[in-house]
């Protein structure tokens, strides 16, 4: 019944953590019981994006090492009681946990939660191996840049080699005005290269920066990115939602932007 989803990308800075926070919150918003796990041991920041940093007492490594019970380490979200976070340790490194331990931990959580979201660290080393160990399904995040796509391609290859049952693509930070000018790859271009199922595209949105700094995911809000993330959540639950027409959104915002440009 429950599904374990790993959010990964290979390249850093493309929006794994933002995606994890928003998809996790979105799924909770839709009524599922969700737990977010930060597997980036040593460089934790999912807790910061969720605005839950000040509640951390125990972490993933404590659970794995048996210093505390799972219940003690899980942090309840501020807004959704059906959303929890398992923060990672900051004072340790990736070798503190093995894929087997990760798998066991995830299986323990399966009993209680509908969705278990794993925020994967950048790279393809131990941290990546830990994160994908217990996962049924992967969300590969990329931006429409060759470097990110190259890494995403590598990651998809590794996921397939590890027999990941389902791999979906999220194209993040797309700017339709640039796509129109021919300065940026379109969603279709990216999907052509990577040849995996696309589950959503998220427009570049400055509200993301604001929401990240405030520690409140913007999924479900009126902003373009908030809508895009909510659509992704609905698709994850199996609902059939057509891809958002970013053209109107992008067109509108570029029109607003050009309006200001003309003024100045």
């Amino acid at each position, binding site marked *: 019944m429950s599904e374990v989803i790993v959010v990964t990308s290979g390249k850093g800075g493309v929006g794994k953590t933002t995606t994890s926070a928003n998809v996790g919150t979105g799924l909770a918003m839709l009524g599922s019981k969700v737990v977010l796990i930060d597997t980036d041991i*040593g460089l*934790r920041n999912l807790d910061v994006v969720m*605005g839950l*940093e*000040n*509640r*951390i*007492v125990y972490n993933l490594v404590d659970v794995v090492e048996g210093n505390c019970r799972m219940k003690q380490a899980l942090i309840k979200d*501020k807004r959704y009681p059906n959303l929890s976070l398992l923060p990672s340790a*900051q*004072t340790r490194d990736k070798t503190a946990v093995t894929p087997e331990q990760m798998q066991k931990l995830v299986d323990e959580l399966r009993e209680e939660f509908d969705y278990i979201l794993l925020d994967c660290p950048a790279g393809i080393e131990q941290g990546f191996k830990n994160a994908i160990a217990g996962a049924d399904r992967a969300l590969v995040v990329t931006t429409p840049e060759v470097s990110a796509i190259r890494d995403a391609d590598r990651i998809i290859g590794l996921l397939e080699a590890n027999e990941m049952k389902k791999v979906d693509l999220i194209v993040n930070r797309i700017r339709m005005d640039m796509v129109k000018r021919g300065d940026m790859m379109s969603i279709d271009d990216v999907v052509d290269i990577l040849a995996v199922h696309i589950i959503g595209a998220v427009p570049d949105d400055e509200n993301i920066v604001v929401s990240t*700094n*405030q*520690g409140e995911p913007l999924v479900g809000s009126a902003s373009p990115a908030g809508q895009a993330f909510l659509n992704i959540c609905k698709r994850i639950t199996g609902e059939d939602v057509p891809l958002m027409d970013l053209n109107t959104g992008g067109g509108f915002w570029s029109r607003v932007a050009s309006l200001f440009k003309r003024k100045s």
Partner: protein
Amino acid sequence: MNQLVSIKGNRYGIAVRMDASAPFEKILEDAGRAFSEAADFFRDARMAVSFQGRELTPDQEGQLLDVISAHSRIQVVCVVDEDKARENLYQKAVEQYARSATTPPRVAEQEPLEQEEDSLPGNEELYRMDEQSASAANPGQFYKGTLRSGQVVESDSSIIVLGDINPGATVIAKGNVVVLGSLKGNAHAGSNGNTTAFVVALEMQPMQIRIGDVMGRCADGVSKRGTKPTGPQIAFVENENIYVESISRDIMNEINFQ
């Protein structure tokens, strides 16, 4: 001239090297000479002494100590058997003495040297600290530098940090925590359960503060725009709650710590 006894000093004590073959009476004689010569140099230092070069009976050891006190003003804190960890032991003995001399007599009564071993830190991070300050037995330690995310400094005593504690960094002390900078991370004072410990910072914007087993965390949503400077503040426990107040004379007078 052939000396039967020579004195070598190190940081924490002196080693008395004796000729192995000469009769003990000669040794005593020469020791008197050696210590009279060195008396000005050592003055009334407190030191640990080790005897090297020959086996001594407890009686002979006592005689030698008498000679030392007769010919110099050195205060012998303890006599150390010859072994590899010699300097280590000197250090502990002298520091233990130094501490008992500066703390109230109530504490000074319970001064067993063996206890040192038990109270030694059981953690790598701490050993690092000890190397820096070389004083596990002191009532306070200093740490210079900013603690960044993921760094932890632990202390068996109180700790004074000359720098900031950034978010994600942690200071843990069995005694009090004083931060001469901004406390933006976690601080845990009285980590052995002592709720009379306190936390002081020049800028108090902590993520979490723990004192003994009482925990407090910052209010949500403060990081929205640059937080206002707080000025020097102190956190302490009252009625199972952590209170944070600006430092004033009244507050200082009310602090009762052990």
